[in-house]
């Protein structure tokens, strides 16, 4: 007697084969081993067109590229909803596709759209990226280019923190709020796993993936694995994201960050978009690495020693509080930033108030032993970008302005008072 069930993943292996996820030992599994014939009804996420595939079971893979691809995808969604390490992929069932036909009768099928010429776009994008001399310009050019050239209108870049435990958002485009400074744990959730697995993770139908996994979760909440469940992790970015593509930024297999694209449209990112994003991400990563090398090799421009920063002594005074416990900084009791950027800001404000300094170099920050900066492998620039962008967003009377290679100026339009707290 035939058996019908929902599948979490149908992965296209090649023109004649698909891989289905094998997660649970159940009736479907037993049936399949007895009768290796199956039929799958596929729904195209963006168009809801349906296709019927007649399949013949061939083998089950428990390692290799196809297996890993399925495993990472399932692990990522499971991790996002707090089900890490509860269910592992047992295997990737490989089927030969005997027949594939569109389900007729319900809608006329549109002609396939011709593929756009992405080579031209990549040519323009990589030209723009390689022309960037600093990280800030690179991130802006990268996200702007992905939008204007390929229509990826909602994007953000995250970079690892100094302990490589979290990724924090350093740049974003196309969101009501920039989200700069928001964090995800490395190794958790879709974005965190894209980082640890060094693999792109594409969700063509994020809403479906989440609904499906939440249902599996609800089915086990009263069972033996209940204690292993952890809280669901909120996805950063669009509240109503239906598609997502997370791509690691790798240079020499060293993780420099994650590029994440989102869309409110289901099925927005196809396999072709994934390849395109991978090429763009590699170029961004390589250029990031080159910028770091250049910053380390070249001496900074000499800072100008002007003292105009403290000339404005009239008007209102703002209180900057620095908490040593986590290096969080509050301006007039409003949270601004924490961690290393917070420590750097305290140092800058202190120098500004005590010595009247407004011009600084990255090198002196890096070498300042009082800051006790960890070995951050020339990653200081990302922290300065985060600090600058957080200030831009949340504090209209403070500013950090780049004044040349490896140097910057701190401007304050109000009188400041600094208070250090435990």
């Amino acid at each position, binding site marked *: *007697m035939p*058996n*019908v*069930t*929902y599948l*979490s993943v149908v992965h296209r292996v090649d023109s004649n084969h698909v891989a289905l996820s094998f997660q*649970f030992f*159940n*009736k*479907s599994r037993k049936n399949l081993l007895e009768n290796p014939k199956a039929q799958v009804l596929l*729904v195209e996420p963006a*168009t*809801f*067109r*349906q296709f019927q595939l007649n399949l013949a079971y061939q083998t089950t893979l428990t390692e290799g590229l196809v297996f890993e691809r399925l495993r990472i995808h399932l692990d990522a969604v499971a991790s996002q909803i707090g089900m890490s390490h509860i*269910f592992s992929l047992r295997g990737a069932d490989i089927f030969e596709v005997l027949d594939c036909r569109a389900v007729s*009768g*319900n*809608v006329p099928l549109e002609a396939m759209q011709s593929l756009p010429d992405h080579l031209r776009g990549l040519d323009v994008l990589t030209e723009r990226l390689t022309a960037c001399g600093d990280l800030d310009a690179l991130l802006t050019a990268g996200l702007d280019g992905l939008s204007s050239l390929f229509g990826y209108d909602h994007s953000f870049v995250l970079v690892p923190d100094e302990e490589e435990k979290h990724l924090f958002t350093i740049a974003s485009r196309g969101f009501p709020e920039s989200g700069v400074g928001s964090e995800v744990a490395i190794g958790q959730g879709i974005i965190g796993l894209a980082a640890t697995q060094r693999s792109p993770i594409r969700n063509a139908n994020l*809403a479906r993936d989440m*609904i*499906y996994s939440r*249902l*599996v979760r609800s*089915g*086990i909440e009263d*069972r033996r694995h209940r204690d292993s469940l952890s809280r669901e992790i909120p996805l950063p970015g669009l509240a*109503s994201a*239906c598609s997502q593509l997370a791509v690691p930024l790798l240079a020499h297999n060293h993780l420099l960050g994650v590029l994440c694209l989102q869309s*409110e*449209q*289901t099925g927005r990112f196809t396999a072709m978009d994934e390849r395109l994003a991978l090429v763009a991400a590699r170029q961004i990563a390589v250029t990031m690495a080159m910028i770091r090398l250049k910053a380390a090799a070249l001496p900074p421009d000499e800072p100008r020693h002007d003292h105009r920063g403290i000339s404005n002594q009239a008007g209102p005074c703002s209180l900057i509080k620095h908490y040593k416990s986590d290096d969080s900084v509050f301006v007039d009791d409003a949270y601004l930033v924490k961690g290393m950027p917070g420590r750097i800001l305290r140092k800058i404000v202190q120098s500004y108030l005590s010595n009247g300094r407004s011009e600084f170099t990255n090198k002196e920050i890096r070498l300042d032993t009082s800051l006790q900066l960890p070995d951050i492998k020339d990653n200081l620039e990302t922290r300065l970008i985060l600090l600058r962008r957080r200030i831009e967003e949340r504090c209209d009377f403070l500013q950090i302005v780049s004044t040349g290679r490896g140097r910057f100026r701190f401007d304050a339009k109000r009188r400041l008072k600094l208070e250090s707290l435990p």
Partner: protein
Amino acid sequence: MNYKTVQLKGRFLESGDLTPQDWESFERQKNTLTEQAKIHGIPLKIGLRILPLDPVRIRFAVQQAFEQTPGPRAGSKL
């Protein structure tokens, strides 16, 4: 929209065209789907593609019922 599913198996009795009551039921389910499609941001004309244009009425005697919701209990008898 969720994936809560029950699978019914049984003996075929008859099939035929939909009765007026069947069409009413079909329309009700179509409206439910339309509402769900709206919630999930799926355009109506796309969401309705999931439905058949030529539904058939099938009557059968249920002999077995299975939990088919995705998860570890999928396939267990009810």
